[in-house]
């Protein structure tokens, strides 16, 4: 099962990552529940935190960090690219509905 990629097998880092994820989750909950920022800013902050979280999960728990750079980039970039273009083309229309929608 072990491939050539050399990686640091120390288990410790996984516990750190796990802890960090739990803390981040807690932070998110508190931020959201206390309504620390105003709406849009809040969304940005939460989105930012979630991206960090998923990066940690995918990187460590799913071991993407330990794959070849080529694979890492290809996978991450292609999926991200899909979302980015969806973002740019889907949402302006959703926004139009606010303006053009039948009241």
């Amino acid at each position, binding site marked *: 099962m072990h491939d050539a990629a050399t990686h640091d097998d120390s288990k410790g880092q996984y516990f750190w990552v796990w802890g960090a994820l739990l803390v981040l989750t807690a932070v998110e909950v508190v931020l959201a529940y206390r309504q620390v920022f105003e709406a849009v800013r809040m969304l940005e902050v939460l989105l930012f935190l979630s991206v960090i979280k998923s990066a940690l999960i995918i990187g460590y728990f799913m071991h993407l960090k330990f794959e070849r750079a080529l694979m890492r980039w290809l996978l991450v970039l*292609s*999926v991200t690219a*899909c979302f980015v*273009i969806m973002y*740019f*083309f*889907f949402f*302006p*229309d959703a926004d139009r509905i606010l303006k053009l*929608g039948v009241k």
Partner: protein
Amino acid sequence: MATPATVHAHAPQGFIRKYIFSLDHKVIGIQYFFLALTAVFVGMFLSLLMRIHMIWPAYSLPLVGEIKPEQYLSLLTMHGTIMVFFVLTTAPQGGFGNYVLPIQIGAPDMAFPVLNMLSFWTTFVGFVVILAAFFVTGGAPLHGWTGYPPLSALSSAGPGEQLGADLWITSIAIFCVASLMGALNFITTTLDLRAKGMTMMRMPLTVWSWFITAILGLLAFGVLLSAGILLLLDRNLGTSFYVPLVVVNGVVMGHKGGSPLLWQHLFWFFGHPEVYIAILPGMGVASQILSTFSRKPIFGYKAMVYAMLSIGFFGFMVWGHHMFMSGMSPYSAFAFSILTMCIGVPSAIKTFNWLGTMWKGHLRFHTPMLYAIGFVSLFVSGGLSGPFLAQPVLDIQLHDTYFVVGHFHLIMGVAAIFGIFAATHYWFPKMFGRMMNETWGKVHFFITLAGTYAIFMPMHYLGMAGQTRRYSQFTEVAYQTKLIPLQTFMTYAAFITIAAQFIFVINLFWSLFKGPKASDNPWEATTLEWTTTTPPPHDNFGGVTPVVNHGPYEYGVPGAAKDYVMQTDPPMSGAH
């Protein structure tokens, strides 16, 4: 599951393991092939009924009876869906890709044979489910292959929108799952199971095309799957993802707040990559065959690879060109339009390179070559209407007219189908150990090329004159009644073309049993499938793994003994 290689060497015994639930990619490929063949005949029969109804709306056909407008639309929907999904996504990729890709890269099988079997049988279930839609109350759905809600989301919006529409969506969802499994398998196989020396840049262009097709499928089908699930929820649980507050026939529906455009975005996000999924394998096959029968290396191998890669890449950024008139933000239309035009550039590169490959070659007109040449001709004719449609201002006039129907039939309905024909004639000897009849193949080619042009070229004229598509008859709008003579001509052309397809199947089945035995390399081609026996043994190369020393298209190499150098031939000094 990781059985050692020795187990693989002898084939499983017993009918079921050998022919039905076989894990052998070759058997699965053939299964896909026959599934697609069945589907194409269903689809063709539907198009025949459509063409008849358009011209003689009141005519009562034997067995079928009189076709009502809503039944016309059901035929149309099923024709489009079956052709796009169960023919053009199934035969070139699932059929020939499955059969040939592992052999061409020197692998004994696909990376995940069980998954491979599952994806075939899932596709099969999808096909059965979609056919079932004909036989339920209300009949097959009438919302077109694009299934735009609210029409497709409301069971009261028309006959066929009841259980039939649910079955249609379910079938598509099943098909998505099957294609995802297939795509995953193709990519992994290409990445991991290439024989020694088969570097990426030595892969035949067919392998590249299946590989890129699989990548497109992997990224696109998941989106359609989600879209379909949401549509099912809208239909059955009363949610409103796609349906705003609407009133059908005076009855206020329970939905509110959804957006029909959301479906269009999701569908076309899948849909445009899908049309390239349909054509890319055809491009690969054409490249392979043109090079083989011109006895010349492919012109600009690297350019071909990069062109396909960029078609795949841009393919994900142009979906909005189907939505110029949909109420989408007009600013997006700008971006989509430019990106769509950009996709013409790699297509242009490919066309030039095909011509460049034939230039100063020694063209041998075996049947596969004829189809490959036909492919180029049709691809150009169908493709050049693309830049018209890609400009929003022109699309104002042309959207949802027969111009579009002409565009996609030429490039998809015939060019990609010609890819299948070419592949069939080319690989038939390898797959079944016998040659197909050349004379009848050529007769079929000439009738089909002329016939399909006769059906689909006039569609462009109709479209410019304003003939809207998806009309079951043309008697209601005055300016369209003037176009009926041309439509009638097309119907007659369709009769002849469809009749000619029987030449093909009869030739196919006759050759299957009676054709002359084929040698290992009847076309004097260079790629790996021609190095093994005909038909190949269970593990493709009889226990050895080939070693590759040459690029895929080494024809006419100076200093070589023959006019071609097989990929496995020992290295020569001085050549690549």
